[in-house]
């Protein structure tokens, strides 16, 4: 009799714990899947002249992206969204000089758009709940970094060399994004 009772209590506890912990798990699942797809698509873009990568660019990569910084779940979502938004913005620029497949770029844009769509309602909730403002320095640092990328692309007249560097930066961004999804727990 006692065993049966204990078993039932254990089952109930397990279920409660699972129920409480799955509020972000669907999002995490989707984000990770999407990021994997994006990385695969990016790698499909043909490798461009290697000499382009020899140019050292200083885009003022935010410290938050470099180090393995710990994020609260809510901050992780805001940073995730901002990064997705900015990568989306870069990919809408003129890439005709590269000869890259429009289909691949469109597929990338679809994935990014889909991810942003999933994040939007949660982001709205967070901003309302915490009365959050974008005065947060992390977001401003990110905006500056992506602004520099955009300005560089423009200054190089969107040539293939500049896009090579963009591709390298975006691959790095996706690694950071993947790391951020680790915080989408509990």
């Amino acid at each position, binding site marked *: 009799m006692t065993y049966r009772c204990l078993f039932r209590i254990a089952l109930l506890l397990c279920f409660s714990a699972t129920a409480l912990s799955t509020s972000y798990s*669907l999002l995490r699942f989707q984000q990770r899947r999407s990021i994997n797809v994006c990385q695969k698509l990016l790698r499909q873009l043909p490798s461009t002249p290697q000499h382009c990568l020899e140019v050292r660019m200083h885009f003022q990569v935010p410290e938050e992206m470099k180090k393995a910084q710990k994020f609260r779940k809510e901050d992780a979502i805001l940073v995730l969204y901002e990064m997705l938004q900015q990568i989306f913005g870069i990919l809408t620029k003129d890439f005709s000089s590269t000869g890259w497949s429009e289909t691949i770029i469109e597929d990338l844009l679809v994935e990014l*758009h889909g991810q942003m769509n999933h994040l939007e309602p949660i982001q709205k909730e967070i901003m309302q709940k915490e009365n959050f403002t*974008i*005065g947060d320095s992390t977001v401003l640092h990110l905006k500056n970094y992506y*602004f520099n990328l955009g300005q560089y692309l423009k200054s190089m007249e969107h040539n293939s060399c500049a896009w090579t560097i963009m591709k390298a930066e975006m691959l790095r961004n996706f690694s950071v994004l993947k790391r951020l999804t680790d915080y989408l727990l509990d």
Partner: protein
Amino acid sequence: MVQSVKRKQGWHLLQCLRKVFSWRASLSWVLEGLGGEANLKPENVEIHIIDDNFFLKWNSSSESVRNVTFSADYQILGTDNWKKLPGCQNTTSTNCNFSSVELKNVFEKIELRIRAEEGNNTSIWYEVEPFVPFLEAQIGPPDVHLEAEDKAIILSISPPGTEDSIMWATDRLNFRYSVVIWKNSSSLEERTETVFPEDKIYKLSPEITYCLKVKAELPLQSRVGYYSPVYCINTTERHNVPSPENIQINADNQVFVLKWDYPYENTTFRAQWLRAFFKKIPGKHSGKWKQILNCENVTTTRCVFPRNAFPSGIYYVRVQASNGNGTSFWSEEKKFYIEMKTVIFPPVISLKSITDDSLHVSVGASEESENTSVNQLYPLIYEVIFWENTSNAERKVLEKRTEFTFLDLKPLTVYCVKARALIENDRRNKSSSFSDTVCEKTKPGDTSKTWLKAGICTALFSIPVVIYVVRLFLRCVNYVFFPSSKPPSSVDEYFSDQPLKNLLLSTSEEQTERCFIIENASIITEIEETNEIDEVHKKYNSQTSQDSGNYSNEDENSGSKISEEFLQQDSV
């Protein structure tokens, strides 16, 4: 004469002195007005940034504005490198435009300071609170271009700022636009809609003048911009070929079904699709609409196309009608979430009775769902509904596992189960339809238990019985093999002077009888009288002889009579 001259000279001197004093007074007044350096300082300095336009405004503390100029410097917070603010150097007005400042980074804090100058006098610096230009900037009015249809207006909105805008470079695609539209004739009927840069406002009436104004917003930053100027346009007259209406898209196994309403017959239709992300990008993307292959030149108000034509994502769909009279305007664009149309197939359930009070449930995927990517796209959980066949009380359980057990059931009862698959924690509450209902009876009432109980009861009752039987048996054994030494009372009396030994087993000595020969009867009586006191043994002997004689005598009467007499005498 001398007196008049003297009087005149005195008067002139007086006038001179008066002038001197008044000049000195005014000089001192001016000097007081200048108040030294403190009074030159600008006051209430404000920064106004609209898109990429930077303005500085202030008040001058001195009432006299002659020859007072103002100059401003700026630097990035934390550095010590004040630079001259372009457009705000030696300005006599109380505002300046420093848009030409080429800020490398509008996302970092900058400091401003301004001071007044008059000749060689300069006021102290008025330092403005450090600020982040991006956060301080206000969203300016967007540029709007309109095109009219009969029942709709096409909007082409350009984001605030120029295309080279530095302020909005990172947010150009994030703007949403709020449109307020009203009929020119009655401004009371206002309607507000949120639109994309390239969008349409529907549900308008033909041949009416509509006026509208647009403002840009950054909703996720809670920032709202200024309204554009009011634009007015006339809708065209009613088109002779109406547009299709009420577009619906439904999923049906491996296909999508697109349906719409159309009032007339003999019309051909075509449907197009667009990936939703294009809507975020300003500029015309009319070239991006693509034809849905199975929906070109269809004559019915529906068309069917395969699911794999549209990989997962968000799309817009529009339909156009054409007949002999011409081609209609495009219908309203219907947003279409593939993921919402994803069909989650119902699971397959199997139920097994293990014990009398539990049922084991196995949830499996149906054959059809094996091939779809739903399971890969989403983690699934199952909503299981469970009830006793005879009652209506249903128990609902959410289970992530595919194998689980229901406990605490009644034996020999039929229970039924049905389940559906859900996407775990999906805000849209997307689910499959319910599986088939499966029923199973629990095993009969706890056979082992009752046997055990019966066994115990039997054991309990049988123990005394067994004990009793054993005792009886032992008694029997004792009786047979170990008899009691105490003879019964009747036997006891009879054999009192002789120890009664085992008659059967031991061979006792033969009991010798003492016999007396009886000569005649009289003697007998005498013998008897004399022998009354004698032991019975002697009497016995005489009697015995008699008796034995009697017993052996054939003549019973005589023998018995004699014996009776003796016995009677003896008994006395």
